[in-house]
């Protein structure tokens, strides 16, 4: 790492340039962005604030006067080629804040939302408190999550089309769909579902973070209810996508069931139709001594005709009733 170990954002001097600070001079206020892989910086934080940020945090906790908020958000990858299927990567961000200082431990890949928040803060004239800054960060992250949901929605639209195509709708001509045909779609659906679940979880984490900020009390410039309602709106949309996954899955399974039932139906009908002729044929296979028909010259032709009749008349009837469709 040739550059500075952390991208500084002290809200006092709103400069974008990185400031190399001595290890014993970490800022007392402002926003400190640290990379998760930056062990030296994390060590410095531990030394100065007594805060261990290199261990995974599962729940929001208070430690050494800091509130620690873990966030795990699936964010869309920024790829130049839009043709590629949507891909997402999990961004694990650990936020630690006091009323004066905001520390964010970020993954190594750059997160657009955080850069945006930093720029927004840099543009504001007054020095915002750490909680205002955090709310801004949460808003930006929520916007990024909205993008995730929008992309998932697109993926699901494609999947729904694929499901209709692979199952062929209610059309029964040509090759029938089998379990193997929809396996791929089912796997993709499972993936989408997991992604949505993680998105909803991420949104819940954001919401919880926003609530923690409010719990801090004191004077705050930003409107929490707006942020909370924005996050909730996003979550509602994500849940709608979840319902959509369920719908697609259900319709896929129903169509498959329908087709398999149909195959069973056709074969049952055919088997049943051929049972009476079998009965007749079997009858004349018996070894009774007194069976005069067996000696008749036209006996075989007669039985053959009866058998055909017994087979064809029920078939015609069944066909008319529409039981073979």
């Amino acid at each position: 790492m040739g550059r500075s170990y952390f991208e500084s954002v002290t809200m006092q001097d709103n400069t974008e340039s990185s400031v190399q600070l001595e290890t014993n001079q970490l800022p007392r206020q402002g926003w400190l962005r640290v990379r998760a892989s930056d062990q030296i910086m994390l060590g410095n934080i531990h030394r100065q604030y007594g805060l261990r940020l290199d261990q995974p945090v599962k729940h929001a906790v208070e430690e050494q006067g800091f509130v620690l908020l873990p966030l795990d958000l699936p964010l869309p990858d920024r790829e130049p080629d839009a043709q590629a299927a949507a891909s997402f990567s999990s961004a694990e961000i650990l936020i630690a804040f006091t009323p004066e200082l905001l520390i964010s431990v970020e993954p190594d890949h750059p997160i657009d939302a955080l850069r945006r928040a930093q720029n927004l803060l840099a543009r504001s004239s007054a020095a915002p408190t750490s909680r205002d800054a955090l709310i801004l960060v949460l808003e930006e992250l929520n916007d990024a999550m909205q993008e995730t949901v929008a992309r998932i929605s697109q993926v699901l639209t494609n999947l729904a089309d694929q499901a209709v195509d692979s199952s062929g709708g209610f059309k029964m001509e040509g090759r029938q769909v089998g379990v193997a045909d929809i396996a791929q779609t089912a796997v993709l659906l499972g993936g989408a579902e997991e992604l949505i679940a993680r998105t909803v979880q991420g949104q819940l984490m954001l919401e919880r973070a926003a609530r923690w900020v409010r719990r801090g009390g004191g004077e705050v410039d930003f409107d929490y209810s707006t942020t909370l309602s924005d996050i909730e709106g996003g979550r509602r949309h994500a849940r709608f996508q979840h319902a959509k996954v369920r719908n697609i899955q259900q319709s896929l399974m129903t169509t498959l069931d329908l087709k398999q039932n149909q195959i069973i139906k056709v074969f049952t009908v055919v088997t049943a139709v051929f049972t009476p002729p079998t009965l007749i044929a079997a009858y004349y296979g018996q070894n009774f001594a007194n069976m005069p028909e067996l000696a008749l010259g036209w006996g075989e032709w007669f039985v053959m005709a009866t058998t055909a009749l017994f087979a064809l008349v029920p078939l015609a009837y069944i066909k008319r009733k529409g039981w073979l469709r």
Partner: protein
Amino acid sequence: MSVRSITRDTWTRVFVDSGSDFETAERVVANRLRGSEVDHERRLPVTFVAAGGGAAHVYELTVIVLPDQIMTIEPGAGVPLLQDVEARLQWSERPGEGPHQAWYAIAQAGFQAAVAALGLMEADINTVRAPMAEAARAEASRSLGVSDLPRVNELLVDIDHALTHVASSIATLTQLARLLRRECTVPGAGVTRPQVDALIQQGEALTRRVEFMVDRHRFLSQGVSQQISTSDLNIVKIFTVLWAILIPGTTLINWYGQNFEVMPELSWEYSSWVQILGVFLLAVIPIYTVKRAGQLR
């Protein structure tokens, strides 16, 4: 490709005709952004669904929002809805200083279009039931099969598509309104917070309406497939029962098809007639029992 500025340069419409125009559009956008403020731009893909001529038309555009202006990148000759918005804005008496009025008007027009499109889909959903009811009535003489309802299935698939587009349209428009709510606090915006709140509420109400329609759609499509599936199962049941009924007779017949040396009944005089009677009874008695129990209905 063409570019048009509206309401004192706060709203720029970029019309992109073909895929190759996108690069030019990017350059125009970069030019408009004047390089310095690139970091603060927000790009939001927005979908409009407009009902017209018995069909729903989907327009996809990109909205770029900046503190002092808004840009819409539209396909072809532009989205008709936005022409109306443009006309209305140009006739408005007190144009605001920022892009907020245009921003508000775009979101509002989008919601109105979504309402109209939803109305159309509701009418379509209501037509799904009729062929189903008809098919169910005709069932007495002819059972229901998959091939009876391809039209219904097509209709349902179409409605599902349209609903998907409307849902994503409403979601993006609500997001647009939410962004506006954050930005409209600046003085001279020309749009007040309660106005935007009302717009977001409208978006949420529409979301609920879409959710309800999706529920209804699911109910109907499940109803269709259940109806068919029940009919199929009924046929399978009838034939399985009939088939099972013939089995005892077949067993009896096969018994005398065996070639044991000593089978004295074979040579009795009326044994074959007794045998026929036996087979007949073995078939009729179970049919009678099963029918009385109502298992053949």
